[in-house]
């Protein structure tokens, strides 16, 4: 089984540690992981801004890079959702490749719980941690239950975090409120985006978080920007870094 590692553009540029942790976590499971060098971006920023018609170049590149692997795994729920919902081939002959990729792409935590079905981890992280459920992973990929629905609760990332020694997961007042990042929304609707982020951070701080984690680095980057501006000591860490650490 070969795993193709998809590291989204902004993680590559700004958060290599999250990417390294993802790679190491997968390797620890004894998997063969490849990282296709020509990858760039999934195309979501364009598509969500209404420019889906400009994403064919990204789609083509993505298919070239990942056509030969069994699974594609990425530490970013929203990029995975974009590929799952919107990747398509330019011509019908290549559609089977696109189909294969759409079906075989996984966000890291769902891959660990659903495909590898891991039941324990050798990890320790002795801190109070708040988990930010990113909307695209949660409501799009359904990696955890949504508070609006009348249904049994579950959470794939939380299940993993509970395997980490000495980690204390804090409760939040608003379990799955959006942080307001929203891709280009964070600049086109600056006032609302920043306000949503501030409110999200506040919920974590009020419940004593020392770290904020999540399965989507983009939301965490937004929250980190706010924490830094407030000169807060609270840090963000991608869930892969926590699952991969032994502190």
């Amino acid at each position, binding site marked *: 089984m070969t795993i193709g590692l998809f590291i989204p553009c902004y993680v590559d540029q700004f958060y290599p540690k999250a990417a390294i942790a993802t790679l190491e976590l997968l390797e620890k499971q004894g998997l063969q992981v490849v990282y296709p060098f020509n990858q*760039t971006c999934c195309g979501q920023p364009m598509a969500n801004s209404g420019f889906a018609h400009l994403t064919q170049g990204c789609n083509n590149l993505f298919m070239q890079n990942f056509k030969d692997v069994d699974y594609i795994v990425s530490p970013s729920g929203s990029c995975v959702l974009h590929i799952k919902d919107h990747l398509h081939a330019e011509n019908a002959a290549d559609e089977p490749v696109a189909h294969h990729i759409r079906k075989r792409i996984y966000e890291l935590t769902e891959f660990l719980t659903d495909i590898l079905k891991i039941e324990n981890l050798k990890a320790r992280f002795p801190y109070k941690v708040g988990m930010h459920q990113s909307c695209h992973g949660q409501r799009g990929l359904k990696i955890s239950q949504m508070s609006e629905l009348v249904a049994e609760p579950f959470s794939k990332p939380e299940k993993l975090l509970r395997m980490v020694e000495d980690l204390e997961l804090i409760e939040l007042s608003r379990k799955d409120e959006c942080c307001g990042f*929203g891709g280009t929304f964070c600049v086109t609707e600056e006032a609302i985006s920043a306000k949503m982020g501030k*409110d999200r951070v506040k919920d974590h701080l009020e419940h004593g978080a020392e770290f904020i984690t999540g399965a989507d680095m983009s939301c965490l980057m937004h929250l980190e920007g706010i924490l830094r501006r407030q000169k807060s000591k609270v840090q963000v860490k991608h869930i892969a870094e926590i699952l991969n650490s032994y502190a």
Partner: protein
Amino acid sequence: MPKTIAEHPALADKFNQDEERVNWHDQTLWWVRAKRDKAAHTLPEWEELRNLASQIKHNVLANLSEYLIQFEENALKNGIQVHWAADAQEHNAIVKSILQKQGVSQLVKSKSMLTEECHLNEYLQQEGIEVIDTDLGERIVQLAEEPPSHIVLPCIHKKKEEIGELFHLHLGTPAGNADPDFLTAAARLHLREKFLTRKIAITGVNFAIAETGEFVVCTNEGNADMGAHLAEVHIACMGIEKLIPLRRHLGVFLRLLTRSATGQPITTYSSHFKKPRPGQEMHIVLVDNGRSRQLGRKDFRNSLKCIRCGACMNTCPVYRRSGGHSYHNAIAGPIGSILAPNLNMKDYADLPFASTLCGSCTNVCPVKIDIHDQLYKWRQVLVQEGYAPAAKKAAMQGMAFTFSHPAFYRMAGKTGKWFMKTTPFVINNNLNPWFKQRDMPEPPKESFHDWYKKNRQQNGHA
């Protein structure tokens, strides 16, 4: 009230200048959302009910013309006069002609988002006709000369002190009294006089039943009933999508409506109107105003299932922090952002972008409208139709090029430099709006790509 042609971000920015007010607005609506959750969780069959409601509405939309004809036939048999209006102008003209026939220049009106959509109040005012809104919230915004900011809670943006002040000015209550019970009693007294002296009452319609030719109006204050029962002429105005096929379908919708709207198990008054009482005239105006066009837009057809519960607004994290007026449309929030561009793409091109696409709206919607997916689709349509700002378009084209050319991307990227300039995310702008309230991430020494090259090259995969 003149419609403000302003963009959502600018209006939201204005609303956010008073952070305390934003917090209060957000918390009040979140409280309603939490009540909705509690009410929904009392029904184990909740998700099944949503499915059922969605399917009934699907049937209605697929056979709308037949159901409309059936409804008209039955309503006529019941002695209701039926009028058809292609658009807002025709709707307003029909209402005016009924008033003129009666020689009446004053009327009472209970809550109706359709008349808001058609700007009936302004129209009648210009014609010298006085309209008194009898829903308490509607009356308050009417006194303030503002449009409602929410379809169920029209004056949710106003604090009780502001309402006390308005009542002091217009109804003569003592200055400084903001006690809700006192103010409600004062409003009652004031409205009672209007109810008793007006010959004509307008109401909205929540559900119209094709099978029986009757319609149902839901209110918590009983003001629609009061108006309709005292008036000699009752005019009901409805969008053509308000139909349901059978009376027995009503139970599904009545169970969903108020639980979704306010968390109540049932609306206080759900009144059935089937035929005029002896001596009374009853009219119904069936209004299209763009609905047929939306029905023809495959991707957006489902938006016509909406039963106007407002749940999508209460849950929307953007609406809660930007206020209803920032949507500059009669119907605010997520569903309004889908309905508005159908009416006018140019004026409302900003609204489908006023969302993070978090999807909470889709999850609460009692008739399961795929709201956030439709917002995504509207963005594509609006860009294709040429409503994207030029700077955004240029930035997107630059991005599309960079991301399609890995070598160029690596070079441009060189640990974040290009990213710092063009993201977050995308809008080329010297006054990077990201930086106003957030710090930029610190670029690391090397990208993951470079780290991998150094540390895993032995795998030999390139």
